[in-house]
């Protein structure tokens, strides 16, 4: 381990962290703007030009709110809940390849914090940890509504993690590697994107991503229009803010995941035909990757302001009786097609 390597990774980590937080922050504004436009109104436009300072105002307001820890709450776990939620939301961005490598003074700098060889498994580990933030928060607040909300959230996450994992297995059968960097590298150009070979897998993965992020139509844990408030009923001040923030970070990270797993990550059409240096290709790649991410974030919001919420039994029905069998069918289909391709179409 040389010092330069550590320094380089540290800078990258800080940049990724800042970008994640800023994008999550402005997603809150974007969400309200999108909601406004879709309902034929403007959305917030008073704070700054076009409402550009609105997230800062919201954040500032959260800081000045009274901090309430309910009597009978388990203090340590009560504080740990939102912390865990936001930490797990943030650390999954570590293995996402943001771009190819930059060449500065003959030194290759990879734009991926850690290209671990168990990348996809790491994602699953982190996603599974995310449930703890919600579960602990709900349980520690000593309130039956919070506990009920947390149980709803936990059972939803666990149910949809299975289908998500199964959908990814068929993707892994195609790519043959768990390393996220390799998965993206394989999808260079346009025709190699995994969406063309795994459309059904993508549909299942995306549905599950919606459920894992607790977004409409799967926002039953929060359910702000009909419940008391879900698992964060007892939370106030910035602790509530952290829960909300972690939802937006989750949305950003899962958009990045969907873009890199199925939509080619930083790859864009005709990237090999362009007569540009490696650095320029990388920079354009990063921009393209972020455009894809923003596209997915917009889709998240678009769906939120279109679809109504599922009923709880419908949610379970979709997860267990439709998505899981579909994902298994997809695995079998992928296996059969791969076998046929390998043995007869060489």
């Amino acid at each position, binding site marked *: 381990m040389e010092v330069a390597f550590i320094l380089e990774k540290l800078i990258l980590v800080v940049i990724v962290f800042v970008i994640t937080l800023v994008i999550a922050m402005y997603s809150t504004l974007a969400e309200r703007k*999108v909601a*406004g*436009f*879709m*309902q*034929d*109104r*403007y959305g917030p436009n008073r704070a700054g030009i076009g409402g550009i300072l609105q997230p800062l105002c919201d954040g500032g307001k959260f800081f000045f709110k009274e901090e309430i820890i309910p009597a009978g709450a388990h203090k340590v776990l009560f504080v740990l809940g939102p912390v865990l939620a936001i930490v797990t939301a943030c650390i999954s961005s570590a293995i996402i390849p943001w771009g190819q490598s930059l060449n500065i003074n003959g030194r290759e700098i990879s734009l991926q914090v850690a290209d671990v060889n168990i990348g996809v498994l790491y994602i699953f580990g982190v996603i599974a940890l995310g449930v703890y933030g919600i579960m602990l928060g709900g349980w520690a607040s000593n309130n039956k509504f919070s506990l009920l909300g947390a149980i709803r959230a936990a059972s939803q996450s666990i149910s949809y993690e299975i289908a998500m994992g199964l959908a990814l297995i068929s993707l892994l059968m195609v790519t043959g590697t768990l390393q996220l960097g390799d998965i993206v590298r394989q999808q260079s150009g346009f025709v190699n994107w995994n969406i063309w070979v795994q459309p059904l897998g993508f549909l299942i993965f995306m549905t599950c991503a919606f459920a894992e992020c607790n977004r409409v139509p799967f926002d039953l844990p929060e359910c702000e229009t009909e419940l008391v408030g879900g698992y964060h009923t007892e939370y106030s001040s910035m602790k509530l803010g952290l829960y909300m923030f972690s939802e937006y970070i989750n949305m950003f990270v899962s958009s990045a995941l969907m873009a890199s797993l199925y939509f080619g990550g930083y790859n864009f059409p005709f990237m090999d035909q362009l007569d540009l240096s490696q650095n320029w290709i990388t920079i354009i790649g990063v921009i393209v990757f972020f455009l894809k991410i923003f596209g997915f974030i917009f889709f998240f919001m*678009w*769906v939120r*302001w*279109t*679809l109504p919420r599922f009923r709880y039994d419908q949610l379970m029905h979709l997860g267990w009786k439709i998505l899981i069998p579909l994902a298994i069918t997809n695995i079998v289909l992928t296996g059969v097609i791969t076998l046929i391709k390998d043995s007869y179409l060489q």
Partner: protein
Amino acid sequence: MQSLTNRKKVIEQKPMNIWERMYLPAIAKGLSITLRHFFKKNNTIQYPEEVRPYSKNFRGRHSLKRDEQGRERCTACGLCALSCPAEAITMVAAERKKGEEHLYREEKYAAVYEINMLRCIFCGLCEEACPKEAIYLDGPHVTAEYVRKDFIYGKDKLLEPRFDITKLNEKE
């Protein structure tokens, strides 16, 4: 049952076919509708900067008028107060002193003239009752206040500002 009009329609609920049960076409349709609204022009009026135009005969806040020489028209006869169905108007009359002829048109004037905007129903009977054409409901609507007593408008708020009649004619 026999239909009295021939507009009756019997609706048959068929079980959904596989395409409908997938819900994906329906979701796509819904998404296209919301996307269409995303690009639609919206009709919001940005209130403080932009005001919805009042109709020509809108009855808003009262104003006490002045004559061509800038003198108050009101002679404190009390007909407006008498005609007011909501009893929103009160006034205290006073006699015009010598040397005040440039201020008040008649020999009697209203020293205090108050309208309670919380009582007022903006019916316009005061302006119909006025023999001196001194009161008109030609202002904008009454704005919000923090306390009730601020809704009692005195002469400071009601009286029309002085204007130069010659310049007014020039503008037209």
